[in-house]
Structures are given as structure tokens and as C-alpha cells.
């Protein structure tokens, strides 16, 4: 305790703050006083969806970047009590249960007593269990923990369905010990890489932390969401059988997500949840790539992009009011689809409608996109089909194509001369 004279010198009586702890408390309150602002956070949204879908999530991130803070926030917004268990300070028996010897072990067996936090979780019936510091636990503790994650068992207790589990680990490069998931175990997790956003941290330390709006599942969308998810996954796997099961090979891919029937089923669930919540593609991208790996995940996302393209038959039915995608590559894909549809079922009326579509594309977007579809469409002409009048409005595309041809010829001549 400081002496009075040091803090109340002179004859004027000092303010009432003689207790230094009170002053410190006031300062702490000022420091804690931070505002929040709404800011979309795809990481947190992905985590929420995976937790809602009841899939085990593994957060990979360097220590001290706010994984625990994110979990606290998530637990508060889902109204779940948060139980944090730091794996590295426990023994295997804390997760597999402590053997308690009774009167007659040979007759009654030795029950494995669960730890208090598990008992409380079971009694509450619901909660968010956060297994932190998985990477610094010993192999035996990790083995015990994996039983907890996969079978939801702690000793003789079984965690109720309302308990959701999230684990966190440090990336291999910074892990002090040899924590590494074997492929079968890695396949059971949704891997989310947790990174800090430079701007968010700077702004947060300045007093304004982001407040993420969490996704809400829309009950009206549920049947469509399931249908959409099934079509997406089945459509891709029917066309690419090799993607169904592919064990990771090579040192760089160890311990990460890889495709198998199990992880595809998880993906299907996640697509349905993301669709029902109306989440952005960015969020779905994090989830899908964290479940089946980057390559298969990106193929699935590309397939989803194609599913978003307008149906060629709809476009052909009303070419003058057709709604073509704005993005050039998607627009070209849509026009290619239209040409393919005409090729599959050729008819004069469909051929004319396709020309009308090309004219519309020419008038509403970049002209170079329609050169290839127009060439393909012209090749589909049958002898008795007259050239439609609309084709004249594509003259711009023809001259553009010739200009490109001439440029190519000049380049060829110059390259020949240089040789």
C-alpha cells in the first residue's frame, strides 16, 4: 500500500481514490470500453455453419490470433455455454476416465469416472466444447481426445446431441511437437484455417471490434437446400468418379482435408446448411475446401457456378428478353451451352432463336465473346435454312474477328522474319 503522503501531498485533501485497485479498475473499464461495428466475417460464418451442422471442426491457427475470442463470441450468439478444455495440461485418463476401484473389481468391473466438466456438460444437455492446444498434447492424450471427438465419449459418459465440439491446433510449421493427423482422422474434420485480418486487428485495438452477423437458417428453404446440395455433389461425382476417393500423397498434403465418401457426405450437409442460410459463396468455399481439399473443392465450386448458369432451353424460348450473365467467361459458357443445345436437337426455329440470342449478347456486352459461338452456330446450318436477317447486326463481330486475324498474321510474319 502506498503511503498517504505520496498521493495526497499538501493541505488540499486528495480525491477519494485512495485505493489503487479502484483506480486500476477504472482504467481497465476504460480500456475494455470498445464499440462494435457490423462487418461480414466469412471465417466466423463458416465456423458457425459447421457447428450448426454438427460436424467436428478443427481450427488451424498460430497461437494468439483470437481463436478463443471467436469461440466465445460464437457460444454467446448461439446461446450455448462454452467449456474450454486445454488438452495439453491434461492426462489421457482425464478424457478416457479415471479408473475407480470398488469393493469387488472382479465381479463389478472398474468404472471409468468422467471429469467434472463432462458431468456438467451432460447435465446441461447442451454446450460448446472447445478443445484447445491439441497440437501440444502428448500422443496418448491426443488418442484419448480423438475418441471424445469421434465417438463423443468421455469415460462411461456419452455427450448428448446438443453438445458441439470444436478443436484448435497450431499449424505443423509452428507446432513444437509432432502433432499430425493421420489421413483417416483428418478425413473426419472440417479444417478451417484461422487467420487474423490486419485491418480488423488495428481497428479493434483502436476501440472498434467487428460484429459479425451470424447466419440464420430459413425454414422455408430447407427442402430446396437439400435438393440443391444433392444435385451439386451427385452431379459432380457422376461426371468425375476419380474424385470420390483419393488418399493424400506427398508430404505437403499430410494432415489436411482429402476426398472420401465420408467427407463428401459432410460436404453435402454443409452445402445444404449454407444454402438454407443464404450464405455467400466465399463461406461455402472455405467449408468445401476444408472438407474435401482444395482441388476437389474447387471443382465442386466450379460445378456450382455452372449450375448457376441460365438454362439454354429457357434462353432459347425467349431470346429477346434473355438474361445473360454479366461476367464475360460465364456469358461465353452460357452461349456455348446454347450452341450445344441447338446441336443436340437441331431445328430451324431453335437456330434462329440462337442467332437472336447472339445479337442480344452483342448489344449488351463485349463483342469478342460471341465470335466463337457464332462460328460454331454458322457451322450447324442445314441446306434449306435461310440466313436470318438478324445476322447483319453481328457484322461488328465479324469485322472484329477479321481484325484479330490480321493481327495474328502480322505477328506470324514478324516472328518468321526474326527467325
Amino acid at each position, binding site marked *: 500500500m502506498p503511503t498517504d503522503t505520496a498521493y495526497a501531498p499538501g493541505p488540499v485533501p486528495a480525491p477519494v481514490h485512495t485505493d489503487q485497485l479502484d483506480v486500476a479498475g477504472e482504467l481497465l473499464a476504460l480500456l475494455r470500453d470498445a464499440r462494435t461495428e457490423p462487418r461480414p466475417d466469412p471465417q466466423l460464418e463458416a465456423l458457425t455453419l459447421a457447428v450448426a451442422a454438427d460436424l467436428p471442426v478443427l481450427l488451424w491457427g498460430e497461437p494468439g490470433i483470437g481463436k478463443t475470442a471467436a469461440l466465445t463470441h460464437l457460444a454467446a450468439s448461439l446461446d450455448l455455454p462454452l467449456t474450454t478444455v486445454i488438452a495439453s495440461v491434461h492426462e489421457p485418463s482425464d478424457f478416457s476416465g479415471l479408473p475407480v*476401484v470398488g469393493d469387488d473389481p472382479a465381479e463389478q468391473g472398474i468404472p471409468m469416472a468422467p471429469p467434472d466438466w463432462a458431468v456438467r456438460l451432460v447435465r446441461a444437455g447442451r454446450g460448446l466444447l472447445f478443445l484447445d492446444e491439441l497440437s501440444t498434447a502428448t500422443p496418448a492424450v491426443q488418442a484419448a481426445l480423438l475418441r471424445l471427438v469421434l465417438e463423443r465419449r468421455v469415460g462411461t459418459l456419452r455427450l448428448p446431441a446438443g453438445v458441439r465440439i470444436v478443436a484448435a491446433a497450431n499449424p*505443423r510449421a509452428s507446432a513444437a511437437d509432432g502433432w499430425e493427423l493421420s489421413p483417416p482422422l483428418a478425413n473426419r474434420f472440417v479444417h478451417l484455417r484461422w487467420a487474423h485480418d490486419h485491418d480488423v486487428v488495428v481497428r479493434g485495438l483502436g476501440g472498434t471490434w467487428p460484429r459479425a452477423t451470424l447466419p440464420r437458417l430459413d425454414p422455408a428453404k430447407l427442402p430446396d437446400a437439400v435438393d440443391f446440395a444433392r444435385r451439386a455433389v451427385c452431379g459432380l461425382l457422376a461426371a468425375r468418379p476419380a474424385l470420390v476417393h483419393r488418399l493424400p500423397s506427398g508430404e505437403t*498434403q499430410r494432415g489436411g482435408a482429402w476426398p472420401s465418401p465420408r467427407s463428401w457426405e459432410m460436404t453435402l450437409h454443409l452445402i445444404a446448411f449454407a444454402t438454407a442460410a443464404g450464405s455467400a459463396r466465399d463461406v461455402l468455399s472455405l467449408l468445401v475446401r476444408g472438407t474435401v481439399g482444395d482441388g476437389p473443392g474447387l471443382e465442386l465450386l466450379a460445378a456450382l457456378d455452372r449450375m448457376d448458369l441460365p438454362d439454354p432451353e429457357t434462353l432459347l424460348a425467349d431470346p429477346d428478353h434473355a438474361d445473360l450473365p454479366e461476367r464475360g467467361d460465364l456469358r461465353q459458357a452460357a452461349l456455348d451451352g446454347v450452341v450445344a443445345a441447338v446441336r443436340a436437337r437441331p431445328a430451324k426455329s431453335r437456330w434462329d432463336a440462337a442467332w437472336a440470342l447472339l445479337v442480344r449478347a452483342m448489344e449488351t456486352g463485349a463483342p469478342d465473346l460471341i465470335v466463337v459461338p457464332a462460328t460454331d452456330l454458322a457451322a450447324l446450318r442445314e441446306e434449306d435454312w435461310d440466313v436470318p436477317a438478324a445476322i447483319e447486326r453481328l457484322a461488328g463481330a465479324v469485322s472484329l474477328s477479321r481484325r484479330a486475324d490480321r493481327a495474328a498474321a502480322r505477328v506470324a510474319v514478324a516472328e518468321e522474319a526474326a527467325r
Partner: protein
Amino acid sequence: MTPRTPGASPASHATVTLDREKLFAARLHAVRARPYLATALFALHAVESRQVPTMAVDRYWRCYVSPGFVDRMPVEELAGVWVHEVSHLLRDHHGRGDRVARQRGLTGPGERLRINIAADCEINDDVFGDGLARPEGAVDPRSLGLPEGELMEDYLRQFRLGAHLERAAWLDCGSGADGLERPWDLGPDGAHGLSPQEQDAVRFRVAQGITGRPGDAPRGWRRWAEEAFHTPQRWRELLGAAVRSAATGSGAGEDHTYGRPSRRSAAVPGAVLPSLRRRPPRVSVVIDTSGSVSDAELGSALLEVASISRAVGGRRDLVTVVPCDAAARIAHPLCRAEGIPLIGGGGTDLRTGFATALAARPRPDVVVVLTDGQTPWPERRPPCRTVVGVFSRGRRRRTWDEGDPDYVPDSPPDWARVVDIG
């Protein structure tokens, strides 16, 4: 991307209207010359801008075009500019520029210009030719006196701004090339931007097109496609993870044992609980080299293994080195300095190296092999964990044999964890 002709101020072009036909004819030519880039080229959204000096991209895949620039450039050179700009985006130069600027503390417009020039060097050394004309004034490594085929981050260390770059000071590929916002940028909320997910999807489709038909694309693009979604991990980290994982596996390292009673045993009478014991791993490093690996590479790899095994609890006396002749001259002084006991020696056949390492008593928990891969491997799995560090540079250089042109060296066996070094 191309230097603006000095003296031609944007004001003199203010009256020029954008020749859309010329701009898009150039894109069509670019697509025909580089079909594997078609998706990316078509995904770019062209925005007319009178502020931008030439052509510039932003991180949302918009392409800002100066009408005067389009007017001045021939179609074939404009096509080269299209491909150049889309390359900045495909290779994520804005993200990499941001990262490298933060890591190395590069601030100020001068540094961003250097990032832009280094990125141009990375692109321009193999993007032109073969049907695509090189735009006038394009910066390439040779004009800066630098070697070809390196990455932006490497070029960035090798040159400074100076009088020789005066012409380049006019160049500006926009925020998509170096990560610094420009006054003409429409920003994240502007129309027709691509989200990060959409950018990844475009990149993925381009990479897939290249790996699907690798014959069409130059070497630089093939390498990009291979690495686009597998960021190459540094071998130090991989080797470290492999050795750590091997050294802390069952039988060594920190784990629970029933050999001694647990501190909790008193609380649970009658039950035997495991206790935590630390048993540091014994690591044997077998070094094989036939002279194709540089001393520096070998030395750094050996040092790495020594420091890793110490970090997981191995004391110095638990790390042994088994040299195979040529390597001895590096291994000896290094080990003397590090206090590592040397055992064995002789014989370039790795199998004898394995035998020597395993003959030691007590037996090692982990065998780490550093080799260039030109060796026969033991037929059976040795009775301990094995990590193989392969100097891939040496392997690639020497995959032929004068006496036997069909000779292909055995690849390391399945039972070992293999890390490519170098």
C-alpha cells in the same frame, strides 16, 4: 504496363473515344494465341478510364483502359498487354506484393513501383512470342541485367530504382499488380468485381486447362499451374515436421508409461495409472552424396536436423552422423563444431549407411537420410522411423546415365517419409 511516351500527356488524348472494337479484337487475338488463358481473359471487366496512363488492373479483376493508349497501340501489341495484365491477377501479384511489403517493411510509392517492376519481370520473361507480340517498352529481367525465370520476390532483392529505370517510372499496372490503391480504382463496392472465391474459381479453371494439356503452355505457366493451389512448403518446415513427428512417435519422446506410478496413484488406490516420462529420441543422420549437392545445401540440411532433434529433446550425444565418403569432409567439421559424435563411415551405397546406423547400440529411434536419390534402397523397412531428405535439384540434373540412357534411379520407398530439399 508499357511506358507512356514521354511528352504525350493524357490531356491530348482526352478527345479520343475508346475504340472498343480494337480493344476487343486484341482480346480475341490474345485468346486465340493463348487458349488456356481464355477463361481469365474473358473474366476481366474492361472499364474506360481517362485517369489511367495505359492499362491497369485492380484486385477485383477490373481492367482500366485509357482510350488514348488503345488508339496508339497496334492490335497485336494490345493483345500482349491483355495477357500481361491478366497474368498479374492470375499470379496474385497484389496479394504477394502486400505480403512482401509487410514482411520486409517496404513502404512508400517507390517500393510499390519496384514491386510492379519485379512482377513485370516475372511475367515478361516467357509470356511473349509464339504468336503473341511483345509490346514496345515491356520491362524484362534481361533489360535489368537479371537472370530469367525467377519469382517477383527474388527479383525484388536484386535491383534498385535509378536512372536506368527512368522510362519504367512511367509504367503502372494498377493495384492488381502491386497492391497499392489507385485513384481510378472503383474499390470493393464497385460494379463487376470478382469476389475472392470467384477469382479462385477462375484461377483453378485456368490451372486445370494448363495441367490438362501441358504441351501448349510454356514452362513458367506449367509451374504456376502446378503450384497454384499447392503453395510449396519450405523444405525446412517439412523436414522439421517429419523429424519431429518421427521422433515423438511411440517409443520415444514424451509419452505416458506404466513403468512408474502416476502422481495420482495415491488418490486411486488399487489402480495403476500411467505417468508422464520423457525419453529423448536417438537420431542417426545418414549422409550420402556423390558430389552433386553443394556443401552449403548439405551443411544447412545437416544443421537443421541437428537443431530439430535437439528441440524435441535429443541431447547432443544422442545425435549421430553416419557419413558416406564424399560427405565426410563437410560432416566432420560441422559435427566437431556441434559436438555430435561421428560413427561409421565409408561406402557410397546407402544400404551400408543404413546398416551402420542400425548396428549402433542402443539402436536409433529415427534415421534421417540426406541423399540425392541416386542410390539403391534397402529392400525391407528398417525397424525404426525413417525420414528421407532428397536433394531434388541434384536428382533432376542427373536423371541420366552415360552408359545406360534408360537408367531411372529408384524412387525412395513407400515406408519412408520423403521431403524434397532445395
